[in-house]
């Protein structure tokens, strides 16, 4: 117990001295504030950006909302289509053999690679971004639900079959619930991929969103706004992950397995 508190204190001291050092380095001019704005300056900029449209044309809440909306829509469709497809591929042999080679072909292409093609098709609006994010989450959703089903323990299937379960019953009462944790791992990878490729897509071509905000701020040399944007991207990425973990605890019974 005592030891634990000791380490917590060390952590707090470490964090505070990190911020103080940062502040000191910036304010004393060892590293110019143009390269490393002080933490206090970042806080000011953050408050300022909450209501001000400069320098990129929209307030911070609007950028956040735009990015979140695009990421979540793409993610949602990726999961809703990917998970059932993965499950069917794992359960029905012919399905597997038909789709697997095709799937192996597109799997190694990073989602960012799809950005230009999608922009060519759909322009720089919401559709191009949603479709990139769709791909970014669809692929891990398929892979993980596929291997989740494939990793169903034989003994669990045997128990069910000995009780006289039909193939369908084995799928719905054994294979799918036992794949639950693995499917959620897939969702986590998918969410992470969505957020990353969204930022990439917005950096490359868009008119709104957090990626666009930091890109524009860079062009006009507002490093403080870039910093704020990058930190906000991190915070919201982490927050969405937390949300997903919360959902998993609600939905997956019996704790994590494997």
């Amino acid at each position: 117990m005592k030891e634990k508190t000791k380490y917590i204190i060390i952590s707090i001291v470490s964090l505070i001295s990190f911020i103080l050092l940062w502040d000191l380095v910036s304010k004393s001019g060892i590293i110019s504030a143009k390269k490393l704005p002080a933490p206090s300056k970042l806080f000011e900029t953050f408050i300022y950006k909450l209501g001000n449209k400069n320098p990129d044309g929209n307030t911070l809440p609007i950028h956040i909302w735009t990015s979140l909306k695009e990421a979540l829509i793409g993610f949602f469709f990726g999961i809703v289509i990917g998970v059932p497809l993965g499950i069917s591929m794992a359960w029905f042999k012919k399905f597997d053999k038909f789709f697997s080679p095709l799937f192996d072909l597109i799997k190694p292409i990073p989602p960012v690679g799809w950005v230009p093609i999608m922009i060519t098709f759909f322009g720089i609006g919401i559709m191009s971004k949603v479709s990139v994010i769709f791909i970014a989450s669809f692929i891990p959703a398929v892979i993980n639900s596929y291997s989740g089903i494939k990793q169903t323990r034989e003994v669990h299937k045997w128990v069910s079959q000995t009780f006289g379960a039909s193939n369908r019953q084995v799928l719905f009462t054994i294979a799918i619930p036992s794949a639950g944790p693995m499917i959620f791992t897939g969702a986590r990878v998918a969410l992470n991929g969505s957020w990353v490729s969204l930022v990439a897509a917005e950096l490359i071509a868009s008119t709104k969103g957090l990626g666009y905000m930091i890109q524009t701020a860079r062009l006009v040399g507002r490093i403080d706004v870039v910093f704020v944007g990058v930190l906000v991207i991190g915070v919201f990425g982490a927050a969405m992950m937390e949300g997903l973990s919360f959902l998993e605890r609600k939905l997956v019974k019996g704790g994590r397995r494997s």
Partner: protein
Amino acid sequence: MINKTFTKDMRETWMYGILGFLVFLLVWQAACVFTNFGKIFPTPKVSLAAFLQAFVEPIGRHTLLGHISISLRRVLIGYTLSSITGIIIGLLMGYSKLAHAIIYPIFCIIRPIPGIAWIPLAILWIGIGEPTIHFIIFMGGFSQMVMNTMDGAQHVDTELVGVAKVLGAKENQIFRKIVLPSSIPYIFTGLQTSLSTSWMAVLAAEMITAREGAGWLIIAGMQTGRIENNVIGMIAIGLVGLILATLLRNAERRLCRWTVRSR
């Protein structure tokens, strides 16, 4: 018996695989011929021809292989650096509670920031050029590497540590002979995920700041309206990603013959 069912199964696998691929090509072709899709997108035949041609005829400053080798070099530099530092910091945080208490809170600030989000900052800090790209790749793989290694070092079987101590191992021997080898499977998991994010980071970085490389190839395809270059780039990227992942998996199998995973 075994052989018969085996070959029958193999035959089916190939048959359905080829069937699936043919259906894919047919849909692609049909879409090009019968819909507006064809106005912006090349047919399979044109794409394939362009792909082969790209090996001999330069696009921009280099041929396809040239672009790929440029991207590969960038990835290897950034990835190697991020792996080494990531493993060191991860082991440190996993093994020493003090190091964990000091580093972890600071690490938590940068952990959730995707590598790609560092692009604008990196440009402002370092300017446009190779070091910026290396930095972005570094940031892309770094936190995953740290997290996985730390996880491994924290999950060392305490009983085995006890066994080694009873056998007379000193503190530094415990670290080298117990903590390190038991972290290796975790490190490889980290190496794998971080490789794919590094590969993604190089593409994004090249799309935004470079004049050559696989990422530049596809973005240039878009900007010049030569969409077949775009397609070529994607095929190449996919193939290289696949090769890298396979190489890494083989390395793991060789180095970790003892793990349950390689059964």
